[in-house]
């Protein structure tokens, strides 16, 4: 077993512009499960070099204790993509996030480049994970093939803003236009048994709207959501954290399952409702999300 592998909850991933030193150094203190140090869209063209240098230093010197650290690099076909990979891959953050991936050929090419850099630095190929962003109609069409291309890909994510632009949507804030894409991307992730992040919610003042959207995407099956302001973290974490009532119910189901298993009973009832293997599986997931060890219930 690889003891270097770290596991994180992935309810919230906070975007931090790579050229903002104050935000970079404070990124881990707000309670997000992960931080996403951004070299791409949050950084102006004339700041790309500065951001790359700053993020490289931060990865060396700042402890993001308890947070999963992902760096979003620029697309490989931009003038910055290759330099980003050369600077970031040797530092092996927990993951790198690749934007606007559209085809299998593209992901093949990028992973090859990443692994060449890792070979140059005598680094393993299985430590740093790869996250893929689907942000175009073509990417949505190819999402399963992309997501299943490599075992290194352990999460995919929908980039709602770019996708809406690619789809030429005029009004995108109600999420109707990208609803199909959301569902398609979730299904691909589930088929590959990997995590899936929802896009950002841009109206930072609208806390109720954020909560509604988080509840909706949780029902769709998303693992968590990208966050653009620390004030959004608490709401999304709350939505993705089981309530006390949910935990009690899940614990009851799991206990009943253990009891019945000994007697060879596979299907039984809890509080008048049928429980079978998939229900137990969902209950186990609730306990996992609540950090409750099954052995201790």
């Amino acid at each position, binding site marked *: 077993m690889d003891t270097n592998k770290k596991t994180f909850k992935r309810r919230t991933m906070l975007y931090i512009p790579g050229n903002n030193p104050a935000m970079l*150094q*404070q990124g881990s*203190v*707000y*309670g997000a499960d992960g931080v996403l140090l951004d070299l791409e869209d949050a950084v102006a063209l004339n700041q790309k070099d500065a951001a790359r240098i700053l993020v490289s230093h931060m990865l060396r010197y*700042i402890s993001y204790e308890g947070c999963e650290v992902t760096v979003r690099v620029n697309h490989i076909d931009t003038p910055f993509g290759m330099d980003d990979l050369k600077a970031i891959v040797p530092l092996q953050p927990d993951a790198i996030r690749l934007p606007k991936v559209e085809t299998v050929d593209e992901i093949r090419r990028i992973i090859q480049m990443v692994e060449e850099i890792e070979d140059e630095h005598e680094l393993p190929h299985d430590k740093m994970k790869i996250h893929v962003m689907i942000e175009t109609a073509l990417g949505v069409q190819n999402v399963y093939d992309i997501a299943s291309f490599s075992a290194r890909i352990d999460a995919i994510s929908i980039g709602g803003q770019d996708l809406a632009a690619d789809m030429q949507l005029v009004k995108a804030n109600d999420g109707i236009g990208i609803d199909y894409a959301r569902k398609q991307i979730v299904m691909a992730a589930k088929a590959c048994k990997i995590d899936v992040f929802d896009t950002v919610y841009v109206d930072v003042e609208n806390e109720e709207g954020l909560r509604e959207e988080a509840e909706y995407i949780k029902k769709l099956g998303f693992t968590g959501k990208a966050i653009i*302001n*620390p*004030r959004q973290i*608490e709401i999304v974490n709350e939505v993705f954290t089981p309530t006390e009532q949910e935990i009690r119910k899940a614990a009851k189901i799991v206990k009943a399952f253990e009891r019945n298993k000994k007697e060879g009973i596979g299907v039984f009832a809890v509080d008048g409702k049928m429980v079978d293997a998939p229900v137990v599986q969902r209950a186990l997931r609730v306990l996992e999300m609540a950090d409750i060890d099954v052995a201790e219930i």
Partner: protein
Amino acid sequence: MKNILQREIPETLEGIGELEPFQGAFTKLRKGWMEEKKVPPPNKATMPHSSKMCSNLKEAIIRTKPRNGMTVSFHHHLRGGDNILVESIRILAELGIKDITLASSSLTSAHEPILPYIKNGTITQIYSSGIRGEIGKAVAQGVMPKPFVIHSHGGRVRSVHTGNIKIDLTVIAASAADVEGNSTGAHGPSAFGSMGYAVIDARYARQVVVVTDNIVDYPCVPQAVTQNFVDYVVKVDSIGDPSKIAGGTTRITKAPMDLQIARLAAQVIEHSGLLKEGFSFQVGAGGASLAVAKYIRKIMKNKDIKGSFLLGGVTSYGVDMLNEGLFKSIFDVQSFDAAVSSSLLTNPYHIEITAGLYANPFNCGCMTNKLDIVVLGALEIDTDFNVNVITGSEGYVRGASGGHSDTASGANLTVVVCPSFRGRIPIVKEKVHTIVTPGESIDVLVTERGICVNPNRPELKENLIKGGIAIKEIKDLAAEVEQITGKAKPIENGERIVGIVEYRDGTIIDVIRQVK
């Protein structure tokens, strides 16, 4: 000589006299009977049906017979909108009065226009709970011949009672008053709320002038200051900038860092064992401190907990909690926003109290002694939990002692909330520049990078750990901060003592030396 916190305190100081070193928060009070004599309020008489009304502030001040070397007092209930302090000093200067001791319960940015009068010898000494801005810079540079004295809100009352501050003239701004001087801050176009600090000055000053922009029919109701203490009454067009005096409600901060610290502080309070039915509570009006109330409100609603009383500086947020039934009453010495005034006026469970009842250590029990939980800020905190709320990173005076040490000493749980560093400057450090509140009064420090419990509260630490809260040693937190910010160079001070910091019992907890 050194006080118990190892701060070097001179035995005597020119302009002050003998200094008594700080020996611990309760060493002196524990005796129960204070050696300091209490000075009597002045005996005065007024003929029936004579008028106290003056046509303007200057006339009133002239009638009080001002003299060189006098002490003039003011309150800071008008917050950043006050015009009366500056106007009074300008009049005194115009009358050629010199060597004034200015005793204002606090000084805000609105008072900066008095700076020329500090520089030209009109004002030669200041007693205040807080000094900020350009005045704070100037006094730290040693512009006054006599040392300034920083006291707590409770300490100020003690000083007035013992005659350390001997007020010759107090000028009291009110938002409504009658011709006899019965006055209030609870209504009128410039309503500002409680007059808790002014009431004490009215009782002890040799001459009392009430100034208002709103004369009401006799008798003014309610009455914070009553006519039996008032010599003169003045109607002016304006007591200050209404948008700053009576400006709306205090909003909870949206700054992510403050909110994060507040969220952690609320978790600490939740698991401290003190957040239970009937608890009493005080928070400051600033950033993270007030934001704690937001999270406590949520916890109280979820767990169906009802508190007893809210104390201190009161915001509309506290009033909302009273109206929701989360607390039974508010005891209000100072209101932080205009929305509080109408509650003070109409709700019998929102009670105006004097600074004496609030925090004076020399009486049979002030209300800060009945506090369960208080949340306070800090400019700096050291690894012995000593807190500085008065001097900034350059050594200038830029804060207020306020009720910090009063509430910290009285509360069962004192929580300090602050970021671990600001900009490049460490806030949690080995030694603070100036001590205002001793570490023995601080129970928990909450920062974004860790929560530290004072070693003298092991049972609290245990409760928090049981509640799943990670605790750091404060020395480890300071080291972690230093690793990020580097070690700040100590402030270069001269030898001259330009100010002293009185603890609430009148002993000297620290001195402030001239900034080079």
